Structures are given as structure tokens and as C-alpha cells.
């Protein structure tokens, strides 16, 4: 089992946390995991991305060149990373901020109104959890429980109410992905 994921978006969209939650959940479930951020000169509002690898074997490069999955939270990220997804891979994108429709036909594509849903839930910053939920549902590499358990470890300062919000966002994302996957299955 080897899952290589790139998560990308604007700085401030919680990209790094998504990745760390995934990696931590993988660790909790006994997998080999790695997480690595893109790092560079400090710049707010620039793009940021991270790579997560979850594997049953020892992990080679933590830097992912051809991901199984890309989660793109803004348009530049979609444009940059969608082409590198492996055939039959997965693309999840934040359709609230991305107005183009990805062209690739050889991958599964899930559009999630992540920012919109998060705003509706009360905090736009939870958009990352919506997208993460979608991923969990679509891929099933780690369990929802492992992710929920990891929230405290990854964000020790979060208040209970924010945790609740994040879990709600996660579940919402899972629901949406579930719906879309059903549709696409019925189409294909």
C-alpha cells in the first residue's frame, strides 16, 4: 500500500495542517508516513504545498513527483499539480475559489465547495477540513476516527468548539464526496 498526496493552496488556507493530520492519522494506524512542506522565503499570501506519503513499506522520497492524489485549494495549485497526477489518480479541488473545470479524463475528479461550505459552517478557515473529509471518503487510506484523534496532537491549542467545528466540516466533506462519487459511478 502506497499513497502519495500533494496538498496545495494559498498560505493561510491550512494546507500544512491538512497534511500533518493525514500523516499523523496514518501513523496512528501503524503505517509508515512522511510529511514535507514546500519551504521557502516567508511570504504571506503566496502559495504553499506539502507532500504526504502513507505506506506499508519504508518510504523512499518524501518529495512526491507523481502523486496519487492532489488536493488543490486554489487555482494556481490546480494548474500546477493536476497534470502530475498518476493515471487513475484522484483530484479534489476547492470549487469555491476555482472557476475552471479540470480537463483530465483519466483521473477521478471531485469538486468541493470547500470555502463556501466552511463559511456556511461559520469559519472559512475550516475549508481545509471540508476538503480533507472529501479525501477521506474518496480514498479511505486512513479512517475518519484516526483523523479526528489526530486533531488534538496536531493542533494542541485548539478550543473544543473549534474542534467540533472542524469535525463537522470534515464530515460535511465526506458527505459531499460520497454524493459525487455516487454520481460519477452512476455516470460511468
Amino acid at each position, binding site marked *: 500500500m502506497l499513497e502519495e498526496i500533494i496538498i496545495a493552496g494559498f498560505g493561510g488556507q491550512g494546507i500544512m495542517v491538512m497534511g*500533518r493530520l493525514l*500523516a*499523523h492519522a496514518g*501513523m496512528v494506524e501503524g503505517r*509508515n*508516513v*512522511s*510529511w*514535507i*512542506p514546500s*519551504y*521557502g*522565503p516567508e511570504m504571506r499570501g503566496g502559495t504553499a504545498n506539502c507532500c504526504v506519503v502513507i505506506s506499508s*513499506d*519504508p*518510504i*523512499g*522520497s*518524501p*518529495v512526491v*513527483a*507523481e502523486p496519487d492524489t492532489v488536493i488543490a485549494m486554489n487555482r494556481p495549485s490546480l494548474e500546477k499539480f493536476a497534470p502530475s497526477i498518476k493515471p487513475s489518480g484522484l483530484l479534489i479541488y476547492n470549487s469555491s475559489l476555482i472557476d475552471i473545470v479540470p480537463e483530465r479524463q483519466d483521473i477521478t475528479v471531485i469538486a468541493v465547495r470547500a470555502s463556501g461550505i466552511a463559511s456556511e459552517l461559520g469559519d472559512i478557515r475550516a475549508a481545509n477540513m471540508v476538503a480533507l473529509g472529501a479525501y477521506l471518503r474518496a480514498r479511505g487510506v486512513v479512517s475518519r476516527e484516526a483523523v479526528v484523534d489526530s486533531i488534538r*496532537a*496536531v493542533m494542541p491549542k485548539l478550543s473544543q468548539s473549534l474542534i467540533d467545528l472542524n469535525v463537522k466540516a470534515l464530515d460535511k466533506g465526506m458527505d459531499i464526496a460520497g454524493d459525487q462519487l455516487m454520481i460519477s459511478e452512476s455516470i460511468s
Partner: protein
Amino acid sequence: MSERLLMKGNEAVGEAAIRAGCRLFFGYPITPQNEIPEYMSRRLPEVGGVFLQAESEIAAINMVYGAAGAGARVMTSSSSPGISLKMEGISYIAGAELPCVIVNMVRGGPGLGGIQPAQSDYFQATKGGGHGDYRMLVLAPASVQEMADCTADAFELADKYRNPVMVLGDGALGQMMEPVTFSKPPVSVSELPPKPWATTGARGRAPNIVNSLHLENEELEKLNLRLEAKYRRMKSEDVRAEVIDCDDADVILVAYGTMSRVCRSAANMARSAGLRVGIVRPITLFPFPSEILSELAKKGVPFLVVELSLGQMVEDVKLAVNGASPVQFYGRTGGFLPTPKEILARMESVLKDRSQAPCGAVPER
């Protein structure tokens, strides 16, 4: 805490150092190692230690000299340009025979270069980028767990040899998170063996002097020979390498650190495709595992050395192999990590060259 923690390599270095009894850290910010000083600035005061941000890398290494000379377990960390600035200080530390740990999270060079991972400071680390005949013991971890383990070992080896020990990582190892376990109990600082040579105040004994100046030829040569004997001892007692699947190998990859992980993926790919690939992963870069390589070379099996540089460790491999089998090189720079596929392609060409070239001939890199 023997639970698995998800930590950055840089943080693992910090935690491991503290658990190894390091109570002093002198450093200066530079990407991609900033999490080390940041971690130390949070944690050291909690254990009664001192974190000091020095005015420069030069000041930091000279503070290390002072503290090491005073008998403390002490560490500094930096990345390539900052390490270059420490060259004089490291030469002094080696010359004065002081134990300390220096971490280099290598980034691309030369000059300001870039901030992505690289392995282009191998020569500097292993041959002595500073002046004079000196060597550091150089450890090259390949995972966050090894970042922690090598750091812990580094303090022990530094004290064992009264010599600076370098932990040579790279941007990827520093920035990535992986699970890490600290299984050994923390060292009790008060129970560390005493250092009778340290400058702790000459109470009830003759003054101690920490020094590397020897104006008389005889004295300086004596120092140099003592150092050489020490380096020989390192070669006989503390060489470390991981040797994987080399017994039946048609080709052997040689790589360290981050690069060795990718080679492992490539080797697995190759084995699935029926190609028998072995790996030698030096863990100590100095002392270099020359004997392991020269032993393997006796079978004439070709080596492919892969580095994140234009070819540095490959010289040590060639010196070890000494013409007994072909040695080829593949390297990427600028922050690129070669993919397993790239390496696979190179391995195939090594094998093709091999089947054509006369036995023992070494293709040019």
C-alpha cells in the same frame, strides 16, 4: 517517552540533543534548519539549559569552542553558507581536541544558492573544509528517527574522541516529519564522565589550557600525529554502513541520507523487474566504509554512486574500489531529487556499459 511522535527532522535533532545531555546551544537562523534553534529556544530553558542566539555563525562556533573547552556538551547547527563561515572555528576545535556536535542541514550551493536539499557539502564535511590536517567524524542519517539517533550518538562519539562530530542532513531531512521514538532514557548530565582537561577553574590542580597553537615544529607535528592516530582509531572502531541485498547483486547503488531512500525505492522497483540491485549506504561518511566497498568490489560488480551533487562521495568510493570494479556516478543538483525511475534508467546503462567494457575498466563520469 517511547511513543511514536510525528516530528520534523530538525525538531528530532533538538530533542535528541537535550536527551543526550546537551544543555547549551549556540546558533544563528538559516533555512532550512531554523526549527533546531527554535526548538532549543523553547526547550532548553525548561531543562535548565541555555539557548543563545549568537550574532553570527562565527560567534556561534566560537561560543561552542568556549563551552566545549569548559567541559559542556554543546551543539550548534546551520546550513551550508553558515557552515562555511564556521570553517576556521571547526579547525580550531579539531586542533584543540574539543568534543562538540555540529549539524549541517545542507542546501543547494554554491554561494547563496538555494534552500532546497543538497549533498554538495560532502567534501567540506569529510575532507576538512577548514585549514590543516583535521577530520570531523561525520554521521549521515536518512530518516527522522536516524536524525534523532545520530544526534544522540554524535555526543557520545564526540566525547569518546574529543573531536567535533558533524551530523550531515539536508533540507528534506530537516523539514520532513516522520514518526520518531525516543527509546533510551535521557542522559543524566551530572552523571556524565568528568573531563579533567576542561577549563572549569583550577581548584586544587594545575591550570588547564585549551589551545591549538604550537610554534615549535616538534610540538605541532606531535599534535598532527596524535590526530592521525585518532582518525585511524575511528576507522577501526566506528565505521557504520547499511549493506542491503549485495550478495547476489548485479549492480550496487551507493548513496547516503535522503538520496539513499530514493535508491531504496529504485532498488525495489528494479528487483520487481528482475534486476538484482544491492545498496551500500554509508552512515559514517568519515570514517568512510571503504573496506566494505573494497570487499564487494572484489567480485567486479559495478557501482553506481548517486548523490545530490555533481560527484563528491564518488571519489571515496573510487578510492575504496581502487580500480577493482567500475564506478559510475549519477547526480542531480539545484534541489532536485532524482526519481526512482531516473535511477533505474541509470542502472540499466551501467549494466550495458559493463557488458561492453573490458573487465575492470572504469567509464568516465
